[in-house]
């Protein structure tokens, strides 16, 4: 590995003995631990933020400090986050390095099992901060650029395209939306900015790792996507490979805007290491006759709290959330969806499937809001939970508010376990119990997984096989 290969995350631990990376004291771009106004100034200078961003960050910091943790409804585990112990900004130069040899064997094996392309492995393992795939994807990048699509980092977005960026930045998710959106607003770095001009239909799904940028998977990434009238876009982030990372707090904000008649699909597949708090705010604003679809797959982490939402602002707008959550022992997937109907004849659909393995806990938390004076709105919500072991846990906490006329909502949830007959049948045909369980679980999520892009669904299937190992017998 060459000297230029830097690591994604600052304080990554590979194993217990060698994990403590040392940081030279004189780094130019290390904001130190803790979060104060000084930290903000520091980030602003390091990133050369314009004044309005500095002001925005400082206001957000105040909101963050003022807001209590939402423990009156959320997990008390949030109290274990020590905000003062984190580094809120570390620029490239301050990032530690590691070599492929240092990557633990089980991680390498996982990559192998998942069938991650050779080129991507080094990047995913944190060996290469830069994903060496320029050649592979440059054609797509070129084609997209020719259509007038802007696809840059959020930093370039706010510098080079302020006229579009400022108009929508922080509008879908206001700073004060919740404590973690405020935190993100104060210290954000990284993430994508995408603008698709009117009528442009982007054929290929855009992925964060097309863009060569070490800040891709930032700890506090901020993504803003605007799809103009009649345009279409599919965006993907993450991958099924586990992200090895000892930065234990991730708090991203993703804002989507679909103008009249636009279609926007945002696909997330994330597999966090089991020490991570993943507290993400994601929301889309759907104008007239537009469609926003979140496809969300959450695996791993200690606690994930993520409720992708759509504000259905224009007539006949449509919102959809398809969610798969897999909680293994020691993990809590607190996921769901929010559908805020704000115009007539808007429709929304939520389908959530969760699997709890071992002592894992999967929670569905949702909000469907149809206020008065609206007509002809429809929502359909289905939550299915599958429990694998006796100590597995699942919860469902939906909240549905309905007023107005000609509106209808329906919510259904069921909890089940893998059918013993099915397992027996498959074992009769020579499958081991583990294989049979995997097959059954894959069948449970199959109708959702089919909606994922092909490579994701293949990886996801393998990942479920992996996660199911050792859960039976």
């Amino acid at each position, binding site marked *: 590995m060459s000297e230029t290969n830097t690591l994604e995350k600052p304080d990554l631990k590979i194993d217990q003995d060698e994990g403590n990376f040392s940081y030279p004291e004189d780094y130019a771009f290390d904001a130190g631990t803790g979060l104060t106004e000084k930290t903000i100034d520091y980030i602003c200078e390091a990133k050369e933020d314009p004044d309005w961003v500095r002001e925005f960050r400082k206001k957000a910091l105040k909101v963050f400090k003022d807001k209590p943790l939402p423990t009156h409804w959320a997990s008390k585990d949030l109290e274990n986050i020590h905000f003062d112990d984190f580094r809120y900004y570390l620029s490239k130069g301050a990032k530690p390095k590691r070599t492929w040899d240092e990557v633990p064997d089980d991680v390498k094996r996982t990559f192998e099992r998942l069938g991650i392309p050779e080129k991507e492995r080094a990047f995913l393992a944190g060996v290469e901060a830069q994903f060496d795939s320029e050649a592979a994807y440059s054609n797509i990048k070129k084609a997209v650029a020719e259509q007038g699509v802007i696809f840059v980092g959020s930093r370039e977005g706010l510098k080079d395209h302020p006229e579009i960026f400022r108009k929508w930045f922080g509008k879908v998710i206001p700073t004060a939306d919740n404590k973690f959106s405020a935190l993100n607003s104060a210290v954000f770095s990284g993430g994508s900015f995408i603008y698709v001009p009117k009528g442009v239909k982007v054929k290929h799904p855009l992925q964060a790792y097309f863009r060569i940028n070490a800040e891709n998977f930032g700890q506090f990434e901020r993504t803003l996507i605007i799809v103009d009238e009649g345009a279409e876009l599919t965006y993907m982030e993450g991958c099924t490979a586990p992200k090895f990372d000892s930065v234990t707090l991730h708090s991203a904000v993703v804002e989507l805007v679909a103008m009249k008649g636009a279609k926007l699909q945002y696909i997330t597949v994330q597999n966090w290491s089991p020490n991570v708090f993943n507290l993400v705010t994601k929301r889309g604003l759907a104008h007239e006759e537009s469609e926003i679809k979140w496809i969300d797959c959450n695996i791993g982490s200690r606690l994930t709290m993520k409720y992708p939402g759509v504000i259905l602002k224009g007539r006949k707008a449509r919102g959809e959330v398809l969610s798969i959550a897999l909680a293994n022992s020691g993990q809590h997937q607190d996921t769901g969806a929010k559908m805020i109907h704000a115009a007539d004849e808007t429709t929304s659909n939520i389908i959530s499937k969760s699997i709890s393995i071992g002592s894992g806990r999967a929670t569905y938390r949702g909000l469907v809001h149809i206020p*008065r004076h609206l007509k002809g709105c429809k929502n359909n919500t289905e939550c299915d*939970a599958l*429990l694998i072991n006796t*100590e597995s846990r*699942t919860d469902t906490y939906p*909240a549905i508010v309905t007023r107005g*006329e*000609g509106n209808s909502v329906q919510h259904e949830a069921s909890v089940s376990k893998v059918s013993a007959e099915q397992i027996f049948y498959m074992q009769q045909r020579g499958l081991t119990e583990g294989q049979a369980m995997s097959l059954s679980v894959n069948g449970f999520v199959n109708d959702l997984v089919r909606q994922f892009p092909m490579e994701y669904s293949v990886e996801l299937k393998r990942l479920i096989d992996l996660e199911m190992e050792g859960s039976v017998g």
Partner: protein
Amino acid sequence: MADRSGQTPLNPSGLTGPAWWEERKAAAWKKFQALPMPRRNEEDWRFATIDAIQLGDFRPGQKGSTSKEALLKRSSASFSHAAKAVFSNDRLLHIEGGEELAKQGVVFESLAGALERHPGLLEKHFMAHPVDLGAQKFAALHAAHASAGVLIHVPKGVEVKHPLITHHWLDGDASAVFPHTLIVAGENAKVTVVDHLGSTQGNGRGLACGVTDLLVGAGAKVDLVCFQTWGSGVTSFQLNSTRVERNGEARSLFVNLGAAYARQESRSTMVGEGARSEMLGLSVGCDRQEFDQRTLQCHDVPNTWSDLLYKNALDDRSKSIFKGLIRVAPGAAKTDAYQNNRNLLLNPEAEADSMPGLEILNDDVRCTHGATTGQIDRDQLFYLMARGIDPRTGAQLLAHGFFEEVIARLPDREIGEAARALVATKFLSMRTRGGEAKQAAAVKRSGDHVLPEDEILDVRALQGLGN
């Protein structure tokens, strides 16, 4: 006891009893004062209109203006019954049937009578199983004030053929009442109890804070039906705790028609294998009524069953909140639990909030829940209107059909009829009301599914309905 910031003071002339009773009363009053009023951001009070909870200056033990004879006349049940107790503003007016029941060993006593003759039963079971779904403060208020109501004890193996009934009246505009019904059913016993809660005046004000507890012994069967028809200015709390032992069966139906703000909390705990609990609810809202329903189905042991069905029909600007939870303990394998909330909006201004929840800590279960909110089916309404039925009546007829699924679950046909009659009375009062109803109706234009009653049927306007 001092009156603090408009909180209802403890009635010094309330029911006095032995030392343990007085101690509990005092402790409860302390607890009531110590606990804060519900706050907006509390999950247990989500969506509730906190401001609607006015303890005001209502006082217990107020003298009413309605004569005893008139009240007793209004307390004549439409169905046959084995015993009856009538209270007005928490004073016992009349009790009958107790002596006959005593021959079977059945206890049917007012709280005062029970304190005198069955203090042991009362001491053991009186508010022994808290509901804990948010209204703890009001449970404490109840415990501090409870003086009216009945203790029913059906000993092992005894089946009471006919229902036992109670009536609680709020008389006048200044009263607070604390109705209490405690049902203790021994092994394989069987009993049906019907509570009537009502105001002497349809627009009466007041505060009602009642507790109904069902303790169902092994193999016992207990049915409870509660008809709540408080006056339209009443703030009501109705807390119910049901505990079912091995192979016992409980069934409760709460019919909510009255009150301005009615909070109902109902908890069923299955403590023995084979325990079953059926929890039913039915509400009809009009004007700005708010029905705030919180339920918990607690499965603590294996092989238990519960089934909840709450249906609300909401007109005008009324609102219902349903928050339910099925909780399955880690060891409670083979739990079969169902939870269903269905809301029918009869008016665009009405609001239904639904929070059906599950907490499942065991994999070997069958748990489902569902919640739907919708409007009257236009095709069905069109059919009725084509037969000359005015739209509002038509919508109400369809709402009757909507409730049938709940009422049909009552095994006693006569009580089912009484429920239907009460729902019909409520609908009738909504039809004949002036003022607000008409104003609300004016919002609904012709061609919509609900029309003002006095509007002449316009066939052209209706043609759109079928499509």
